[in-house]
């Protein structure tokens, strides 16, 4: 059977424009949250977010490194973040200059939950105020979700499968899982896989706030707003950015002497069939996604050292934890589980991929990132190491990453260090 390993990583997050800066700040317990600077948010219920910082910031992102200025002008931020993260991952894997036959077997599966909402908002105002003849000819392809995969394939000449998942906040996890299956199925030897989001715009923030999903009671204390599992949590903090990994068939990676970070061993998917925004109160969908991932991996919960939770800082946190508790049984006492959304906010379609990369780095460095702001753990969190406040050094050989999205769509991925 063809095995799938990870050989390259790329990140653009509110804590850094690259993998090592983001990870260093995450482990140091920094928060990427602050007042919204992209637009005047004074009339919004939620006035805070985890924005990707500008290039001149201590841990900012410089789009000019990997994205042509012409492309930057034509596309929404999520595409810019995605192109850059994909470029980082290819550079990390040593694959920026592939021979033609390798490019024919290299593809892209980089999705987004929402796509180009800022551009849709802006251009609809142009249409309304100035008429159809002023709408940009780049409007459509600068907003479409599959245009990260499109742009990346054009930039690097990747002629294998070209795919883009759209499953809300499970996008990043499904992207990696689906791409791993394409490699297993022999559709490709190399897949760039991940997700991106960039919806910190008036319509995006207002929409999530009206759905009662966003935090609205910490506008004066943004760094304390994302507090998964804490008694005082009251909604997620929106983040933005991208995470992209290079997935590669194991023998292919070994033959070219690639650095192998981890093996993708389990992938589970399920639907809640319950409600458009709320998870099933028993966490049944989450349970079944995790259960399927374990079955595929041929592993049991006792094998898992670290769980990167979906943990959005909403009421759903304890539902997920309940499902983990039922599935893990006694094994819950030997693992650590944290939500990195406490530091970088919720990257929506990018979350699953960014968090998968944090899981891989936890295995590389044998340290698990903290859950910030966990001052008063809520009822139902007893007996679980939720890694409050500070990163923790520990053995990490296998990890589980959960992602759940609006529409009741669930994905779980299990990765482990190579034997």
């Amino acid at each position, binding site marked *: 059977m063809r095995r799938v390993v990870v050989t390259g990583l790329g990140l653009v997050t509110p804590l850094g424009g690259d993998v090592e800066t983001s990870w260093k700040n995450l482990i140091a317990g920094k928060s990427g949250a602050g007042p919204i600077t992209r637009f005047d948010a004074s009339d919004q219920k939620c006035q805070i977010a985890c924005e990707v910082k500008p290039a001149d910031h201590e841990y900012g992102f410089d789009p000019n490194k990997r994205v*042509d200025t012409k492309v930057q*002008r034509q596309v929404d931020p999520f595409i810019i973040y995605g192109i850059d993260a994909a470029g980082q991952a290819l550079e990390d894997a040593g694959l920026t200059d592939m021979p033609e036959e390798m490019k024919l077997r290299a593809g892209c599966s980089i999705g987004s939950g929402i796509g180009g909402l800022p551009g849709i908002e802006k251009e609809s105002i142009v249409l309304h105020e100035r008429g159809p003849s*002023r709408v*940009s*000819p*780049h409007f459509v392809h600068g907003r479409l979700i599959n245009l990260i995969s499109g742009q990346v394939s054009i930039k690097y000449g990747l002629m294998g499968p070209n795919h883009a998942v759209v499953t809300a906040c499970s996008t990043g996890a499904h992207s990696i899982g689906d791409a791993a299956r394409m490699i297993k199925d022999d559709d490709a030897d190399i897949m760039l896989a991940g997700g991106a989001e960039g919806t910190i715009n008036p319509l995006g923030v207002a929409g999530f706030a009206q759905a009662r999903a966003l935090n609205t009671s910490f506008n004066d204390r943004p760094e304390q707003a994302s507090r998964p599992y804490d008694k005082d949590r009251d909604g997620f903090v929106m983040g933005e950015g991208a995470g992209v990994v290079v997935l590669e068939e194991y023998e292919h990676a070994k033959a070219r002497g690639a650095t192998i970070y981890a093996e993708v061993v389990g992938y589970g998917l399920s639907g809640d069939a319950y409600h458009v925004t709320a998870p099933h109160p028993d966490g049944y969908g989450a349970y079944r996604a995790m259960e399927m991932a374990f079955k595929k991996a041929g592993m049991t919960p006792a094998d898992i050292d670290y769980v990167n939770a979906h943990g959005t800082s909403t009421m759903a946190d304890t539902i997920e934890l309940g499902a983990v508790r039922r599935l893990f049984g006694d094994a819950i006492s030997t693992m650590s589980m944290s939500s990195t959304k406490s530091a970088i906010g919720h990257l929506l379609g990018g979350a699953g991929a960014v968090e998968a990369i944090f899981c891989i780095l936890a295995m590389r460095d044998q340290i698990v990132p903290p859950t910030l702001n966990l001052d008063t753990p809520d009822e139902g969190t007893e007996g679980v190491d939720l890694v409050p406040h500070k990163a923790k050094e520990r053995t990490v050989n296998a990890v589980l990453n959960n992602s759940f999205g609006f529409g009741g769509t669930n994905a779980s991925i299990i990765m482990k260090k190579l034997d």
Partner: protein
Amino acid sequence: MSDTAERVKKIVVEHLGVEADKVTPDASFIDDLGADSLDIVELVMAFEEEFGVEIPDDAAEKIATVGDAIKYIEEHKG
């Protein structure tokens, strides 16, 4: 260089992300400056905006070089 030429050049540099010294009157948008047909639609919109002229589709199709654009604008601006 005329005022029109300077302003056209500035728009082309901004929209196509090319070096200013490549934007000569003889430069073809597609062959020399890396534009595609959609970039030309966008450039024409930017010229219309900047100079307050209307460039109909059939006229826009004939604008192949920077010089063609400058000439059309010089002849049609108010």
